[in-house]
């Protein structure tokens, strides 16, 4: 029966990891705006090469 004890502890621990991951996601603001990321994702595909060159020239690191 010891094995069940161990398994239970492991399962709770795994669930806890997901809970922490969720906390992190909320705190870092991933649920603040649910629309623009879905659109933004589609933009980057479009002119990747252009972006790359203009990024190097135009975007100084801050």
């Amino acid at each position, binding site marked *: *029966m010891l094995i*069940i*004890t161990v398994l*239970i502890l492991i*399962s*709770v621990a795994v*669930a*806890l990891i997901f*809970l922490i991951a*969720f*906390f992190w996601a*909320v*705190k870092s603001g991933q*649920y*603040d*705006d*649910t*629309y*623009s990321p*879905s*659109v*933004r994702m*589609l*933009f980057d595909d*479009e*002119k990747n090469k*252009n972006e790359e060159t*203009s990024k190097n020239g*135009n*975007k*100084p690191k*801050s």
Partner: protein
Amino acid sequence: MGVVMENEVTPPTNDGKLLCYHCGETCQNECLQVDDKFFCCLGCKTVYEILNENGLCSYYDFENNPGITLKNIVENDKYAFLENDKISHQLSDFISEKQQNITLFIPSIHCSSCIWLLENLYRLKEGVNQSRVHFSKKQLTLQFDPTIIPLREVVETLVSIGYEPQITLDTHKKDKVKKEDTSLLLKIAVAGFCFGNIMLLAFPEYFGFDDVNSELKQFFSYISLFLSLPIVLYAASDYFKSALKGFNQRYVNIDVPIVLGIITLFSRSVYEILSQTGNGYLDSLSGLLFFLLIGKWFQSKTYQGLSFERDYKSYFPMAINKLIDNVPTPIPVNDIEIGDKIIVKNNELIPVDGVLLSDYANIDYSFVTGESIPVRKNIKEYIYAGGKQRGSSIEILVEKSVSQSYLTQLWNNDTFTSQEEDSNTFINNISKYFTLAILIIAFSSGFVWYVTDPSKVINVFTAVLIVACPCALALSSPFTLGNTLRVFGKLGLYLKNTSVIEKLSKITHVVFDKTGTITYNDQSQIHYDGVELSSIEKEMFSSLSSQSSHPLSKMIFKYLDEKSTLNVESFTEIIGAGIEGIVKNCNCKMGSGEFVLEKNEVNNIIKETRVYISIDGDVKGCYLIQNKYRKRIKSVMGQLSENYGLSILSGDNDSERERLKQLFLDTTEMRFNQLPDDKLNYVAELQKQNNVMMFGDGLNDAGALKQSNVGIVVAENVNNFTPASDGIMDAKLFEQLPALLKFSRSAKYIVYASFVLSFVYNVVGLSFAVMGNLTPVFAAILMPLSSISVVLFTTFAVNFKAKNLF
């Protein structure tokens, strides 16, 4: 996702009319063409050219005609005040030598093309490092290098491509709303996590596996106990706080019986586990909180893009030009002092009361009264704050500070300072009796058992409190009202929160503002009175009126609907009087009675707006400009008057009284010439006997909106600036007003019906508890079952009702 990746010209026609490639409006008088694309105005064309030059034309690929019309062109140095360091600092989130971060509110953000263009701003202007759009808040967060590109230029770039940010006194200090949302979300996560795991550990118990060895059983209960700690200590903390607050204010809210249930559940479970007499009710406890928190979250739906809290500060500009040694220098509005001389430019809002120093001014008080036709003021006349100057710049001598001015004084009224907390909700009314009934049942059944079998007293007493925990009761209201709020939102009525719905259902009297609320803001009805005009004459006046940008000239131009190709010579416009010019060798005049008839006494009797016309001194007649009432207003008012008392308040004179009488019943009270304070006092007077609902649109209604039980703003465009209110209604919804109010009343009955449903569950549960037969398994089944069925019932009932009404 409507991302279309083709570069063809959009079919430019709609009912045979040309559509602007940029903004999608029909091209009316003029039509400009670049490459094979058509534009409705110079503004749209310019934006296209800017984007084309910078290779940003994929803007047009994501959505058809995504642009914003640029017909309202902005004054050149409108944003000069951004060069003032103090203002620039105030607006920025972060500022250093080489980097400045700023968050701007841009109401015109509306589609995926907007996001794309704004986030590619760095390709348009050097110095912009990064730009991020927050779509639902309509915010743009910018990071740029102020040494390469100053703030003013960034903002002007945005304006030039049609995304004018709203920079007002108010915008820089409102980022405090967000926090609570996430804490609720985290609590739901914790409750869900613990609920799932505790339930899993309770499964052996549910299925009655007696052969599980007792050591393991005990281990399971200890883990459950451990998992329940975050629920009681963290997830339930809001309920403890609220119950305690209610206790301090001496009323029993719904959280009191909930807290009572939580404490009993938890302490009995702890006792059972530690004394090894049972497994406790921790699964029921965690399930209960999980459902309650979900209900709370469902109820807290908010519209991020809309603001219900605006006061005059949102309307006022950040800065104003003050004359210092005869040089106009921008200073923050709050720094204006009595005796200062300020310059107000075309289209700028006058922030303070003062005396006009220029020869004349042409002031549009549409913010204050809803009336869009400008008023002429002469030198030395007193000018009230809230108007907008139309025409050339004027100079004003400040007489009162911002907070003491005519318009802003309204906010010094008590109505705006008192913060009442509304505890008088359905659920709190019931919870008093509920708590009392539960305590009586618990004590009396405890007493009965004390007489018959003393060993079971504690058992029965706690069982009653556990099973009676008003989970279903507490869920019925949030889900009904939350669903109703969503239905309203879909239709175009955006309410501040769910308690507005409860207040709506109690309304007995409805008050309407006139201009802009029951009339169209942007349309007028024109009636011609006089000699029939030949088509040549019409064309002459059409050509004359096309020369002027005065709203009345524009209206008449539109009304005449004629070509305006005739040449107008020696055109003159006298502000506040009229226009004249020589067309086809005839001297044509249009304007006020004084101007055209050359008499002085005419205007004293006539109260409505009239425009007289004459050719070579021969008066042809006049145009009567009247408000245009909203479609189907008569039937709306007829239906409303069956259930509600009605009143109309107007800031205008009573020239429309006769027309209003035909639309409304005799019982409707009408008041004219009402100042903002009068409106507020009238509502307060009505409230002695009634629950008052107020419909308004402008800043002048702000006091009455605040004072009334429910204040709703009617807006042609809900993203426009609206005064503080309980809700914002799309003007298109006006004809459905009776149905909307009916719907809010039916929401009340649905809440009552679900109360009955949850009482049935309580009776079943209580009868078991009183008998002393409540087992943990039974509780674990009954409590979620009742919650889920109440949620389903309210959701279906609300949506069914909505389908029937709309």
